[in-house]
């Protein structure tokens, strides 16, 4: 196929157009098409539409709408990038030069124009234009590349410097100038130190900012020659800092692991130990070489191995954490307990990495726990087997939280019945005031010791207990512990003993009183007997007298009178007349004496209505003296000094007389002892009893002239069972009972003054009106 060239021709002469057309269309090998325009404007219009339809422009300079060289200029300015061949009727050389110079491919004068020249010019112009276009394209391409490279070099955050083989700077990018803190101009052409291929770090110091650590690396490159160097300068400050931080962190972690007081190890998922602290080594008793890189099987005693392996397997099969305890005998045969805590760790890619483990030797803790358990057991045993009843209750509600067996026994309830009940429900507080009083004191002193208390058990039996209370905190709640001592039996015994002492004194009195009564009875009996006998004598005498009186003869009388006188002598009338009056008076006196004793006895032994009642103390003392007469009369006299204005005193009459009796008996005994000691039985002692009152107190003083109380026994004399009398004499309760009656029953006071060898004075004060 023939090559076809498309031509746009702008020519004002139509004939010239046809000429050219003819010339070109007749060519045998080449094919030309020509679009003809007779003015510039329409030609340009066409081109602006279909520029690519044409291969070349034939342009006449002198056109109706444009002349001369400006026509070409206009066309070129349009930038159609098509080769232009100028055809002009002018022959001026200057025009020719001008046209070529400003961009036409060729210039054809109309006059010299022929077929060959025209085709050659057209073909040349097209080819030349093609070439020109090619060059232009290439040039542009090169420019673009360079631009890209520069942009690349500039946009790199790393500094880039290029030097020649002598290390003189050929190129430097902005990053480099910034890093090196020099301008391009300062750097270009300067020497730049290079160590080929070996990267090194330098610290770059600045005046106005933090130093930078830079890594510099030089590689050979081709810049101008193959001996040039490309030097990269990289700011590695943050990388470096991160590295340092990491290093420090790692160091910290290592120290941490090393210094954890437990045994730490880690191993990979195959069970190979990859690390551990020295505690772990110490624990195993192995060197690091014997552990790291080894598995459990390499150093674990066979009896433990299975357990550990199984546990590892279990953990690896179910990653997470695992805690278990294990006990075993160590090499020295000591029992060891360990607590093993293990966790799996993962690699970065989330694949299972291995196990990190912590072994805590809890042998001591176990031992402590055991001791604690034993201790707990011990205390529990003490608590439960304590013979004294104990209960622990909540402070706020009295709710029972724990009781011991003794408490069950005492209360009569079983443990399960007692728990969660409150103390009132089981009869512990018979009277609400009891709790109030006890807890008032508990608040004050923090504890209660041996408080006498009464409770009612399940069988409705009243028990006397000594109650001690302490507070304690259990699980941060305030509780109290109450310990009871059941003294019901003791109390009973005490009562019996008190009774025994009373019986003892009554028994003693009975013997004495019997004697006191026997004595007057003896002589009253003798006297009455005597009077009876005497009366017989008198009857005989009276009869004789009567007979004599009845007889009249005087002479007889004389003899009868003699008989009377004989009888008088025989019967000892002198004696009778002398004795009868005194025997009568003594008998009356004896009977009065018996009466008095019986009265006093009756008053003394008055069955105690155990209520306080007003009592005339003077009378009570007097009757006691009478009743006890046999106790003192052999050793002492009693003088009394009563204050007659002493008002009646509210008291237990029986108890009061008991006090006086005990003190008189003691006084008599001590006087007797003194007489025995000094062998002065002929000298009677003296017991003085005095009553008085002051304010609301009746005062009774009883003093004796006996032995006095030795210093060593002073503090004991009011104690029960304390006696200075030989075994078998007295119960040792006398003064204890006095004390009990005065102080406890009557809220009174008792004290005494004594001088050894001289005597003792007891002083008792009793409130006149009961408090």
């Amino acid at each position, binding site marked *: 196929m023939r090559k076809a060239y498309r031509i746009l021709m702008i020519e004002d002469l139509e004939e010239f157009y046809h000429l050219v057309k003819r010339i070109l269309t007749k060519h045998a090998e080449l094919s030309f098409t020509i679009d003809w325009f007779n003015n510039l404007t329409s030609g340009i219009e066409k081109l602006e539409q279909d520029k690519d339809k044409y291969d070349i422009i034939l342009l006449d300079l002198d056109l109706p709408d444009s002349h001369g060289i400006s026509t070409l200029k206009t066309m070129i300015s349009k930038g159609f990038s098509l080769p232009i061949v100028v055809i002009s009727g002018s022959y001026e050389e200057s025009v020719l030069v001008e046209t070529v110079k400003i961009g036409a491919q060729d210039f054809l004068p109309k006059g010299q124009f022929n077929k060959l020249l025209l085709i050659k010019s057209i073909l040349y112009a097209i080819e030349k234009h093609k070439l020109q276009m090619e060059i232009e394209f290439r040039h542009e391409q090169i420019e673009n590349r360079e631009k890209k490279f520069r942009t690349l070099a500039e946009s790199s955050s790393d500094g880039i410097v290029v030097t020649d083989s002598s290390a003189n700077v050929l190129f430097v990018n902005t990053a480099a100038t910034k890093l090196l803190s020099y301008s391009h101009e300062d750097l270009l052409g300067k020497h730049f130190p290079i160590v080929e291929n070996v990267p090194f770090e330098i610290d770059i110091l600045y005046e106005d900012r933090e130093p930078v650590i830079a890594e510099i690396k030089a590689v050979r490159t081709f810049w101008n020659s193959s001996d040039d160097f490309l030097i990269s300068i990289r700011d590695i400050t943050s990388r470096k800092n991160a590295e340092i931080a990491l290093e420090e962190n790692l160091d910290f972690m290592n120290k941490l692991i090393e210094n954890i007081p437990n045994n730490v190890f880690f191993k990979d998922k195959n069970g190979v130990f990859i690390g551990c602290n020295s505690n772990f080594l110490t624990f195993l008793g192995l060197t690091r070489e014997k552990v790291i890189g080894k598995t459990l099987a390499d150093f674990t005693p066979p009896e433990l191995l299975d357990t550990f392996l199984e546990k590892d397997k279990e953990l690896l099969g179910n990653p997470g954490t695992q805690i278990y305890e294990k006990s075993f005998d160590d090499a020295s045969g000591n029992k060891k307990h360990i607590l093993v805590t293990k966790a799996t760790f993962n690699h970065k890619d989330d694949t299972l990495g291995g196990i990190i483990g912590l072994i805590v030797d809890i042998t001591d803790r176990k031992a402590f726990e055991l001791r604690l358990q034993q201790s707990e057991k011990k205390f529990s045993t003490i608590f439960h087997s304590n013979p004294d009843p104990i209960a622990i209750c909540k402070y706020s509600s009295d709710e029972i939280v724990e009781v011991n067996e003794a408490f069950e026994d005492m209360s009569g309830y079983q443990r399960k019945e007692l728990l969660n009940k409150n103390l009132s429900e089981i009869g512990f507080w018979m009277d609400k005031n009891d709790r109030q009083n006890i807890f008032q004191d508990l608040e004050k002193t923090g504890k209660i010791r041996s408080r006498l208390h009464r409770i009612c058990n399940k069988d409705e039996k009243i028990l006397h207990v000594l109650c001690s209370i302490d507070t304690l905190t259990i699980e941060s709640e305030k509780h109290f512990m109450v310990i009871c001592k059941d003294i019901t039996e003791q109390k009973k015994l005490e009562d019996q003993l008190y009774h025994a002492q009373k019986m003892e004194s009554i028994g003693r009195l009975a013997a004495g009183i019997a*004697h006191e009564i*026997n004595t007057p009875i003896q002589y009253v*009996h003798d006297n009455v007997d005597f009077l009876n006998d005497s009366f017989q004598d008198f009857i005989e005498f009276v009869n004789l007298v009567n007979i004599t009186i009845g007889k009249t003869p005087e002479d007889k009388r004389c003899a009868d009178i003699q008989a009377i006188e004989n009888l008088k002598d025989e019967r000892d009338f002198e004696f009778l007349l002398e004795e009868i009056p005194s025997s009568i008076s003594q008998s009356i006196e004896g009977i009065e004496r018996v009466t008095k004793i019986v009265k006093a006895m009756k008053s003394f032994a008055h069955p105690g209505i155990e209520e306080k009642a007003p009592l005339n103390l003077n009378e009570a003392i007097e009757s006691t003296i009478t009743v006890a007469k046999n106790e003192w009369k052999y050793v002492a006299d009693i003088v009394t000094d009563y204050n007659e204005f002493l008002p009646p005193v509210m008291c237990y009459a029986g108890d009061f007389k008991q006090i006086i009796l005990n003190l008189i008996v003691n006084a008599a005994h001590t006087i007797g002892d003194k007489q025995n000691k000094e062998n002065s039985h002929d000298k009677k002692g003296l017991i003085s009893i005095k009553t008085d009152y002051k304010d609301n107190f009746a005062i009774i003083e009883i003093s004796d002239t006996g032995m006095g109380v030795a210093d060593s026994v002073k503090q004991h004399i009011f104690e029960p069972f304390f006696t200075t009398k030989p075994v078998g004499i007295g119960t040792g309760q006398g003064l204890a009972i006095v004390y009990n009656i005065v102080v406890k029953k009557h809220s009174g006071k008792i004290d005494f003054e004594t001088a050894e060898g001289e005597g003792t004075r007891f002083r008792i004060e009793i409130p006149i009106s009961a408090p």
Partner: protein
Amino acid sequence: MNENEKLRILFVDDERKILDGIRRKLHSMHREWDMVFAIGGYEAKKMMMETKFDVIVTDMRMPGTSGQDLLNIVREKYPEMIRLVLSGYSDQEIIMQTTKTAHQYLSKPCNVDDIKAAIQRSLSLRKLLKEPRLTRLATQLKTIPSLPVIYNEIMTKLQNPDVSLKEIGAIISQDIGMSAKILQIVNSSFFGVAKHIESVERAVTLLGLDIIRSLVLSVHLFEKFKESKVSIPILNRVWNHSMDVANNAKKLGEILGLDSKLLDYAYMAGMMHDIGKLIFIAEVPETYQNILKQSAEENVPLRIKEAETFQASHAELGAYVLGIWGLQQPVIEAIAYHHVPSASHTDTITPLTAVHLANTFDYEFNPSRREGSPSTLDEEYIERLDLLKKIDKIKKKLLKSTK
């Protein structure tokens, strides 16, 4: 002691009115007795220093010198005096002490006639003993020793808290001295019993275990023969003889138709008829050893030899001691006259009859028990009782019952 002399009796009490009462009541005795009344122990002591007394009747509880003190003084210084207590006091401790110092104990209130009787009886016994030395020996006597075996047994038994009263009674009734002492305590009203008890077992029951235990263990009421000084064979002879006579006297009493009370007397008298021998053995062992020897050598009845030395035999001595201890008249009589009952001036069958027969028969049955020539039947007495013909029959009956 001159029998024409008035008896001197000292009454002691701290209560003048008591003394007045007694004085008035006993005024009728003033021709026979010189009665002196002392108020309290001190005055009594003074009076005794001034004049001699035959009997003291004292209260126990007195200020100053007590009755007990006074009795001790009397026993030591005036041993021949008969010591009686008249007390209204009932403290057992004190009474127990008196069981060894007082011959008899009278409880207030007491009929003065009882006092009178006690005094009279004591004084009448004086006639039995003519030798003052023997009288002193008898009045001073606290206890009659026991056979060591029996003594040891009772000491052991009493220390056992579970011992029964019956066991104790059985032991005491085996021993002559213990029996005598227990009967003294029961019959003179030491513990207010004042009953005439002639059975040791009953006496023991009346006193009770506590009192007996206290009496034996703390008052040392019983003593034993000191084995070093005494020949045990004679003791055993006397013992075996006495126990047999006791049993036989009771049986004879039954045969003779005595009532039960008299049977008891017969038994007791039989048991104690030779108590005088024990007293001799205990108190004058050497002298008595000689007497025994002589009696055997010379084949003279022992009582004759005793009388040669002491002007009284063991019969009188035993009767005297038990008499002042307040044992009953029939017992005393049976003991005093068991050799020669005709001297008793009685003509009825009494415990004496039974004891005399039992005693004589026993030496007949057991010749080995004889000391010197044996007692023989008092034919005058048997005749007087009209038993002469029956005597063989009686003996046969006895032998029969024994078998």
